[in-house]
């Protein structure tokens, strides 16, 4: 105990108290804002909004397998009935005609407001003649069976126009009255949650509801063989969250157990073990506090990363205990001398690490910037705790077991290992060659590379999606307006261009809120084009000349048109109770101070542009509707571009970090040769790890890059210890032993992550685990005797 204990301890306790207070107020988030840049473009904003709250993010794809077709259909009906009664679901579709009557009634009653064919020209004598003639011809077709009864009221065929347009989507096949997969072996349902896709708790609740409803339905119908399949963005997100939580917890437990076992073995002292974990806790707290204060919110990804810092922060205590408290040096004074001897090296190592991580602070990728801040704050806190608090807490007579014998053995090994130096240089050159040869496929530029969703689940999703014809909404046109009416008018302007692309076969089709709810202006214009009853009757007399349908039979038509002239334009409220309400709400969305209309495009299923939309053609067509200021967004392309941008930026920042490290070492060591000797093993270790990953068929993501920075952070300590002991017969035995211990704990902490099924964690583990071992080996072998 010392007299400096009190201020240091008080300061530390104050730090912990404030930290806990800040952490308790901190908002943790796991949504996609981690990927939204600080100042997003309009396209990026739409992308993130769609992923977070868009209609696609709220879709649950449901399949029922097993049993016979009749059983599956019965289960589908009953499941849909239960879910429809649940307020958590906005719509549940399984092919049953729940809305059909109301839909058709609305379409028929408002056909003269909704049909794009309604123009003054169509109601001229010639227009009527042509339209009625066509309707009569249709009677010759089997389709005429459907229109025959409507003919007296709708001789111009507006209802058929509307139905054809709405039927454009690829619909799933029907078996026994409900949707089924094409091979007929699965019943299919589509449910849309009311809650946003980013509200994972609500998504989880909805998923549980579907499962429970299915279980009760299957039990009631004694359908033991039936199985439920579930997919969709919400299912993925919930499963990913569960996987990440499970894995972080499990892997943290495993690595903590490993590290504690190692430390107990090394220290042979429970006190030392507990004290040794103090810098770890301090570092983790400081990291969260810094990110919370700096960003206002802490991402789950950052928190997950926090577990990995354990492996690094625990090293400092090891250096302190092993190097400063050799057997026999149990006095305060003796320890102080020990600390004075090794501390400058640690200090430089920490500064090196900070240089590496600090550059990440400048990343436009908030996830990465948070990692940078977390690491810098965590390292500083861990080191400060080790230096200024820990020594005072060591009880008098504190001692760990004597590690000198091990150290001496290591010294012997080291002397022999130095013969391998040319081998290492050759290995590093070979690794560089491998990387160079494969330089085009080293980095993965797709965001999906970070997705924790297993391939089997993605395949199921694809199968359900293609059977359902569910929109994957990859290509979107977005227009905006100061109010809903303006947005709808813009959508109509763009629709005209898009229809031309449909006719050319460049796109398969498109959706628009204006299909279901035309702008008031358009509805009024259509209404104004309808002639007065007397005038219409007069024109009909002329128009039906030569047709087998006399004007006298069309009195119901004249009456309907007269009524339509008095009908108020449709509003959103009129759509309530029809399936169009949901369509409009999904596609016409209020923002803070304006409205946006989404027009998802569908790829053609055949023809020269089958299954692929050419963005340039769409952009060219949209240029002609520039007044509506449409945005064309390729959601997958946009997200990949966003991620790719982050990756390139992170690479540049990492290079800047390396430059900063070189500058720092040059400043402190004042010898280019020594800088080279410190960096050489780190660079060699990085090259060999990257080459190994490339040869193993792994394409690197942004998290591998973070892993490489960690190798520098951890490895710089090793290299500096070897460099600092130059001239002697290498580092002291105690120092060597401490490096071995530090390395083992680092590998235990990070290496475990390599076995994770979460790509983010696996990437860091598979980089830092081998990298830390190699960095130590290379630093030893390349050190000068």
């Amino acid at each position, binding site marked *: 105990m010392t007299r400096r204990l009190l201020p240091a301890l008080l300061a530390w306790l104050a730090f912990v108290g404030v930290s806990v207070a800040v952490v308790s107020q901190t908002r943790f988030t796991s949504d996609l804002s981690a990927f939204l840049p600080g100042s997003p473009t309009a396209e990026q904003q739409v992308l993130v909004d769609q992923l977070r709250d868009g209609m696609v993010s709220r879709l649950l794809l449901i399949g029922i397998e097993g049993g016979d077709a009749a059983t599956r259909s019965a289960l589908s009906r009953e499941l849909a009935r239960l879910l429809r009664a649940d307020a958590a679901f906005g719509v549940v579709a399984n092919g049953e005609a729940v809305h059909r009557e109301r839909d058709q009634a609305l379409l028929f009653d408002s056909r003269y407001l909704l049909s794009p064919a309604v123009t003054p020209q169509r109601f001229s004598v010639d227009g009527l003649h042509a339209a009625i003639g066509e309707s009569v011809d249709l009677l*010759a*077709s*089997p389709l005429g069976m459907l229109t025959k009864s409507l003919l007296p009221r709708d001789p111009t065929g507006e209802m058929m126009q509307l139905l054809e347009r709405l039927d454009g989507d690829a619909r799933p096949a029907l078996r026994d009255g409900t949707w089924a997969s094409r091979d007929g072996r699965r019943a299919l349902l589509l449910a849309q949650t009311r809650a946003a896709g980013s509200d994972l708790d609500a998504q989880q609740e909805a998923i549980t509801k579907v499962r429970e409803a299915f279980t009760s339905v299957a039990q009631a119908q004694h359908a033991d063989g039936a199985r439920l399949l579930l997919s969709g963005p919400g299912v993925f997100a919930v499963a990913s969250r569960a996987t990440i939580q499970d894995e972080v917890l499990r892997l943290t437990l495993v690595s903590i157990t490993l590290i504690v076992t190692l430390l107990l073995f090394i220290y042979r002292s429970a006190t030392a073990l507990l004290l040794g974990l103090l810098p770890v806790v301090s570092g983790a707290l400081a990291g969260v506090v810094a990110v919370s204060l700096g960003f206002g919110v802490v991402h789950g990804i950052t928190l997950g990363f926090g577990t990995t810092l354990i492996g690094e922060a625990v090293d400092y205590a090891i250096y302190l205990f092993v190097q400063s408290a050799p057997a026999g040096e149990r006095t305060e004074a003796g320890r102080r001398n020990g600390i004075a001897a090794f501390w400058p090296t640690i200090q430089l190592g920490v500064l090196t690490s900070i240089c590496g991580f600090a550059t990440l602070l400048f990343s436009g990728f908030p996830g990465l910037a948070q990692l940078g801040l977390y690491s810098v704050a965590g390292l500083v806190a861990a080191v400060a705790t080790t230096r200024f608090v820990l020594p005072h807490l060591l009880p008098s007579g504190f001692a760990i077991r004597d590690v000198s014998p091990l150290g001496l053995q290591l010294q012997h090994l080291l002397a022999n290992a130095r013969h391998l130096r040319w081998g290492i240089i050759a290995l590093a050159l070979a690794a560089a060659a491998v990387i160079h040869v494969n330089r085009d496929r080293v980095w993965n530029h797709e965001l999906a590379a970070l997705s924790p969703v297993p391939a089997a689940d993605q395949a199921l999703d694809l199968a359900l999606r293609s059977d359902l014809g569910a929109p994957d909404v990859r290509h979107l046109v977005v227009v905006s307006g100061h109010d809903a009416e303006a947005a709808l008018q813009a959508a109509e302007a763009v629709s005209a261009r898009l229809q031309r692309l449909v006719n050319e076969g460049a796109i398969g089709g498109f959706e628009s809120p204006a299909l279901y709810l035309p702008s008031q202006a358009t509805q009024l214009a259509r209404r104004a084009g309808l002639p007065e009853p007397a005038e219409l009757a007069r024109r009909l007399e002329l128009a039906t000349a030569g047709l087998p349908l006399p004007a006298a039979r069309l009195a119901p038509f004249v009456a309907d048109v007269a009524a339509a002239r008095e009908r108020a334009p449709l509003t959103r409220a009129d759509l309530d109770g029809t399936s169009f309400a949901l369509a409009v709400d999904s596609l016409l969305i209020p923002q803070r101070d304006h409205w946006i209309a989404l027009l998802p495009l569908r790829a053609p299923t055949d023809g020269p542009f089958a299954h692929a939309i050419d963005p340039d053609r769409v952009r060219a067509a949209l240029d002609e509707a520039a007044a509506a200021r449409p945005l064309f967004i390729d959601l997958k392309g946009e997200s990949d571009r966003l991620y790719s941008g982050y990756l390139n930026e992170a690479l540049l920042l990492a290079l800047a970090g390396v430059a900063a490290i070189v500058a720092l070492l040059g400043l402190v060591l004042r010898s280019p040769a020594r800088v080279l000797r410190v960096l050489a093993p780190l660079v060699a270790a990085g090259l060999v790890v990257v080459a190994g990953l490339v040869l193993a068929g792994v394409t690197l993501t942004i998290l591998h890059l973070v892993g490489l920075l960690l190798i520098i952070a951890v490895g710089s300590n090793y290299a500096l210890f070897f460099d600092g002991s130059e001239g002697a017969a290498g580092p002291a035995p105690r120092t060597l032993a401490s490096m071995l211990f530090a390395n083992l704990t680092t590998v235990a902490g990070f290496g475990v992550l390599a076995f994770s099924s979460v790509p983010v964690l696996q990437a860091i583990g598979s980089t830092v685990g081998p990298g830390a071992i190699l960095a130590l080996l290379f630093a030893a072998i390349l050190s000068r005797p």
Partner: protein
Amino acid sequence: MRRAGLIPLLCAVALAITAPLAAAEAWSLEQLMHALGKQRSGQASFVERKYLAILDAPVESSGELHFRAPDRLEKITLAPRPESLLLEGNTLTVVRGERRHVVQLSDYREIAAFIDSIRATLAGDRIALERTYAPSLAGTPQDWTLTLLPRDAKMAEVVLRITISGSHAQLRGIEILQADGDRSVMEIVAERAAR
């Protein structure tokens, strides 16, 4: 008999095969179906007239019928408007102008009634035919009339009766009487199909 294409519908070879049947006095549904079932494929032209209460004059359409056993029937209308209608399995594809509709037959019982009766008869598929209709056969092999009455009450609300006439394995006409009094009459003329 997997010589599809070699023996067109309604061709002389078929007549030869059914000749012994013609000689026999008894002419049963079983025999008619058997004779029709021998036909693997064929084509014919048709003229169809629909007599609708709402119209003063019948609407006439004409075109071609193509059949390939067991379940592919294509009705290509050339006039007054080109339209193609392909029934394959349970899937009905209608192409009219720019529009292409793909529907499951089971969704549209009204349309299905018409087409399925032709297909099942052409295929000689007695089981399929009897699933939907109560068939009764009258006449001789040279001049027979097959009357189909819908079994399903819902379908009977639309279709009252379907009458198919023919000679041996050759269909000559199909008349469909709807519940609302409208009727359609289709005349079928066999073509010597290209081999």
